[in-house]
């Protein structure tokens, strides 16, 4: 296929992934326009982009989800392409179609692949047809009524998972155990799914309670070349949200890795997949694996694959979208060392992980060998209620998993986010947990092994002492204290530099 030059990209996202995309564009010499909400005019992704256009009010439905407006801005500003990031419009096939119809490039797969993989029942059928093992279950034609589902459930046995055909992110999902009322669960799931997706269709899967969530990254180009970039283990999840991800999986051996990789490529080929995507599997203790779903976009946890394979996935996305062929074959790819990612979320582990909003009074991130930070905020920025709680990702890479865990512990210790509550104490507890350290965490890890966790911040006396000293210094400076004052010029908006030292010098 002919290449389509990309010179200007509209970034239809926010936060760390928008910053990540802008950086990749900078490296490729591509101009960037950030489409931002009114709440994000001064946000980091707006600051790092070449230009910024306000597309609507703070709520996502008025800005980041306004496909029509985004396309209009992209055309007006002379963009060639739109990068949707993850979330928002990234897996909306109608948006992908509209982008292409407007003569722009959608940086992602074709709408047909998004649509197929978005319909969980259809995706299951397609995978079965392609010889990809799926979790035992029942989807029928994808629009089964309660009666058929109840009969299928009897055949499958319990525990069961009711899932929404249009589902995602845990909504419209119900666990049914032996003692539960299946009929009631079906009605509740259908209601929730209808409300969340405008689509009440359901299907059933056997609940694999204590499995590993292992996913394979794939890259495919227009020419039909498709490679897999090995696995990520994302078993550490809280309410179906990943918290800590790593590559390689501590559970996968060479045989499992190869079988899963080949299966993922088969899955991608089966839907004519182009660009970056992820095939998610549930893996049992017996190393059997079953297709869960395919994410037709870049994923939050893509950096662990980048660090172990040395491939820049966001740049690869853009190059593929520009019609370039993959510059490597499967045999060229290998992994090196171990990488771990921790998601720093603005949520309060002392209050059932409720979102925490407000100004980030201070954000300091670690650096040094093998430490990467993909941040969406800096000191002075706002964590607003309108968007999700991911503030930054800390990623480490080291020779092996124990070294990576140790590096991550130090990196988390060196991370300071003041002003909003974050899950940092929780992440540190996950890293310290023997089950995690043993590489034995399954999707049950958070609910089972971490169940008893409570933050322990100890005696606040040192904190109070420090605050009082700092407040005293401030007062002394304001009063022009002769020792502190240095001409009274220290009380200024740039006083980060107001170093002060006694003795020794």
């Amino acid at each position, binding site marked *: 296929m002919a290449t389509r030059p990309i010179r200007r990209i509209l970034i239809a996202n926010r936060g760390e992934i928008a910053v990540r995309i802008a950086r990749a564009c900078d490296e490729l010499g591509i101009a960037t326009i950030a489409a931002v909400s009114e709440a994000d005019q001064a946000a980091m992704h707006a600051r790092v982009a070449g230009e910024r256009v306000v597309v609507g009010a703070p709520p996502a439905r008025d800005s980041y989800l306004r496909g029509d407006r985004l396309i209009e801005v992209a055309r007006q500003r002379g963009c060639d392409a739109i990068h949707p990031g993850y979330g928002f419009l990234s897996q909306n096939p109608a948006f992908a179609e509209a982008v292409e119809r407007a003569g722009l490039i959608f940086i992602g797969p074709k709408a047909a692949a998004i649509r197929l993989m978005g319909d969980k029942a259809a995706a299951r059928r397609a995978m079965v047809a392609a010889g990809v093992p799926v979790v035992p279950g029942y989807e029928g034609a994808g629009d089964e009524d309660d009666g058929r589902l109840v009969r299928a459930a009897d055949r499958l046995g319990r525990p069961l998972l009711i899932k929404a055909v249009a589902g995602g992110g845990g909504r419209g999902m119900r666990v049914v155990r032996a003692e539960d009322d299946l009929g009631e669960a079906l009605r509740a799931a259908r209601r929730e799914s209808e409300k969340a997706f405008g689509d009440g269709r359901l299907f059933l899967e056997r609940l694999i309670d204590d499995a590993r969530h292992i996913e394979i990254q794939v890259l495919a180009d227009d020419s039909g070349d498709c490679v897999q970039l090995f696995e990520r283990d994302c078993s550490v999840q809280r309410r179906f949200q990943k918290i800590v991800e790593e590559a390689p999986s501590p559970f996968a051996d060479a045989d499992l890795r190869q079988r899963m990789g080949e299966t993922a490529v088969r899955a991608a080929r089966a839907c004519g997949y182009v660009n970056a995507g992820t095939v998610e599997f549930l893996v049992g203790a017996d190393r059997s694996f079953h297709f869960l779903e395919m994410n037709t976009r870049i994923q939050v946890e893509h950096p662990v694959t980048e660090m172990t394979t040395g491939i820049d996935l966001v740049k690869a996305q853009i190059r593929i979208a520009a019609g370039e062929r993959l510059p490597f074959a499967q045999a060229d790819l290998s992994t090196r060392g171990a990488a771990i990612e921790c998601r720093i979320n603005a949520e309060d582990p002392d209050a059932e992980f409720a979102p925490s909003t407000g100004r980030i009074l201070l954000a*300091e991130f670690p650096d040094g060998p093998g430490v990467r930070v993909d941040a969406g905020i800096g000191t002075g920025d706002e964590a607003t209620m309108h968007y999700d709680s991911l503030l930054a990702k800390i990623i480490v890479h080291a020779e092996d998993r124990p070294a990576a865990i140790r590096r991550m512990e130090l990196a988390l210790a060196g991370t300071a986010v003041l002003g909003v509550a974050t899950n940092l104490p929780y992440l540190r507890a996950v890293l310290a947990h023997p089950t995690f350290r043993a590489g034995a965490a399954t999707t049950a890890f958070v609910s089972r092994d971490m169940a008893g966790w409570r933050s322990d911040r100890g005696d606040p006396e040192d904190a*109070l*002492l420090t*605050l009082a*000293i700092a407040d005293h210094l401030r007062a002394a400076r304001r009063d022009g204290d002769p020792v502190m004052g240095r001409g009274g010029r220290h009380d200024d908006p740039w006083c980060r530099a107001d170093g002060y030292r006694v003795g020794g010098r």
Partner: protein
Amino acid sequence: MWFHYRGAGGNRAVRVERRGEHYVVHLGGRLREVIIRRAAGPALDLLVDGRPLRALVAAEGDRRAVKLGDGDALSFDRVDAGSDEGVEVRIEPRASAPGDAPAAGRPAPDLPEAVTASMDGQIAAVMVKPGDVVEAGATLVVLEAMKMEMRLVAPRRALVRHVACQTGDVVRRGRLLVQLEAA
């Protein structure tokens, strides 16, 4: 000079006195000698009775946050005391976390009858009106933030006395939303 802070453990008072190049800090009935080794922007390096203490501090208005060494962050509010005396009041921990006091200043009364915002967020739906009698578990208000939806439910059968919010309101954690009374 006295400083007063409110945190998860209640109100605490700290006195700081300059003695030449040292500081004497009075806290929790004990005196500590503090030397400031370095103060650069948010970073403070102290010697507290000879023990090194590294910290990062940040403030906005009365809000205070501090991270000690490699530890976790802690939040406080600086509060005014009526006098310059070291009155130390320890209050019972609130259910909510330190530093997340409601915007309106005082925490809402944590009575069984008061249903308060469980997080900062926006009111997505109000399901009741004054005079309604609701059963235990009935949804009163739906609160939304950062893609998370939280349903606030009646703790028991009750009469809705007052509804203090409406759809679209932006509320801070702890804000009173619905007032119930025994039905």
